């Protein structure tokens, strides 16, 4: 639902000054906020998101997680416009079922990523306003993260942050997980406990500085034993 007053386009507040004749065009998009993060380890993957659903100055819900379970080894995080997130996950679920019925096997993380790329590009001229990150285990059991842009460009990463606080979180992950720009530091492999703690700390920081991130954090840890979900409270202001 889009209230046009006080709302100058998705993600922007209306500027209150005299600007002459102004046309208020209906926009099919809205920006519902939220941050998603995924980290790939040696034999695990973590997908985490906050649970706040906002629009403009309002909060619609404090319990709207952005991680969706696709298969036993794959979780997708979608942030951006909530309407498109819902439709996109419905389409992905349907395509997963179709694949399962035609090929008698579950789609692997890499295959889901390639399929999502074509689904997003099929709407190249009226895109899904969704920033997707897929986290899961690949065929060898190693952690895999695939990050997307709204029109389907994707690649495999070790870690990625997407959504409203992505510009704040990505540099922190570059430093802590990628050891970028650190001189003379030993590159220790990331353990699962350390990764989960890092994700929690990083979201606590994001909730401090980004207004669209907060309320609670949903963390999904994917290992060969299954998907383990935890919910941690964050700032509610």
């Amino acid at each position, binding site marked *: 639902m889009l209230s046009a007053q006080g709302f100058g386009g998705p993600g922007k507040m209306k500027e209150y000054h005299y600007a002459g004749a102004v046309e208020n065009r209906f926009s099919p998009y809205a*920006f519902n906020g939220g941050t998603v993060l995924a980290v790939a380890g040696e034999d695990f993957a973590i997908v985490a998101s906050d649970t706040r659903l906002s629009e403009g100055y309002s909060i619609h819900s404090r319990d709207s997680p952005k991680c969706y379970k696709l298969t036993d080894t794959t979780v997708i995080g979608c942030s951006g416009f909530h309407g498109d997130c819902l439709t996109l996950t419905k389409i992905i679920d349907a395509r997963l079922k179709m694949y399962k019925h035609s090929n008698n096997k579950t789609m692997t993380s890499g295959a889901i990523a390639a399929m999502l790329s074509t689904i997003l*590009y*099929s709407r*190249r001229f*009226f895109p899904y*306003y969704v920033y997707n990150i897929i986290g899961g285990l690949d065929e060898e059991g190693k952690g895999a993260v695939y990050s997307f*842009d709204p*029109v*389907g460009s994707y*690649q495999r990463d070790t870690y990625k942050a997407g959504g409203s606080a992505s510009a704040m979180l990505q540099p922190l992950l570059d430093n802590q997980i990628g050891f970028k720009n650190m001189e003379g530091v030993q590159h220790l492999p990331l353990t699962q406990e350390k990764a989960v703690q890092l994700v929690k700390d990083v979201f606590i920081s994001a909730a401090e500085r980004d207004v669209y991130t907060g309320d609670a954090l949903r963390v999904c840890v994917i290992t060969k034993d299954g998907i383990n979900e935890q919910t941690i409270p964050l700032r509610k202001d």
Partner: protein
Amino acid sequence: MLCRSSRLKLVCLFGQISTMQSSSGIPSQETLPIPSSLPESLPFTSSQVVPLPFPMAHGTTTLAFMFQGGVLAAADTRSSCSGLVACPASQKILPIHSHLVGTTSGTSADCALWKRILSRELRLYQLRYGRRLSTRGAAKLLSHMLHPFKGTELCVAATLCGWDGGDLFYVCSDGTRLEGSLFSVGSGSPYAYSILDQGVRWGLTVEEATSIAREAVYRATHRDAYSGNFVDVYHVTSKGWTRRTREDLKEDSHSHICCQKKRVP
């Protein structure tokens, strides 16, 4: 014939991609008042009615040139979205088949998907006709596949570097298709051109050509904000393409590469 059938396949595979008035429910231009600040758009495309709320990934430096040892292609790896580095380690040179690589510039998604479509069409051609399509033919095919989308916001500027005798073609989504022996594409291309024009000759050895290509990309990344991070170098010969190890340009900024002869891995 090939063009028409490939366009049909496009509509089937991608559903809503269509140059005709799409059924996506966007009001057509005749019913909505368009502010005069928007550019005049073609009557067939409804794509410019919905303004996008997010920026696309753009900005790059890619180059390719021919010399006696084959064709060399080099590119930076920074993928930017209006000021934010969306990906510092993206791949802008995509192999299409064993003897053809393409450099990409423009919107990342467009380049990735269209290269994929081109690989598929070339493979189908090979299976149908029993021979590989020439680089010239691949360039023409790509150009004709992009033609229905002329005037839309699709942005693909690729150089196809192939070996059936050594060929270099530049194809752009605005319809340009050129043959040449030296191309540089992207926001950093003016800087790269100056280095290439100075140093590229037919008689270069492979090491000299590689170091000129790296130097050109390094200079462009030094001055262009939208290029940076790493440099990829691909070399295409009669035996196929080979890839050099990716090198971090941060190290180059500390040691003055032009004054030293660096060992190329």
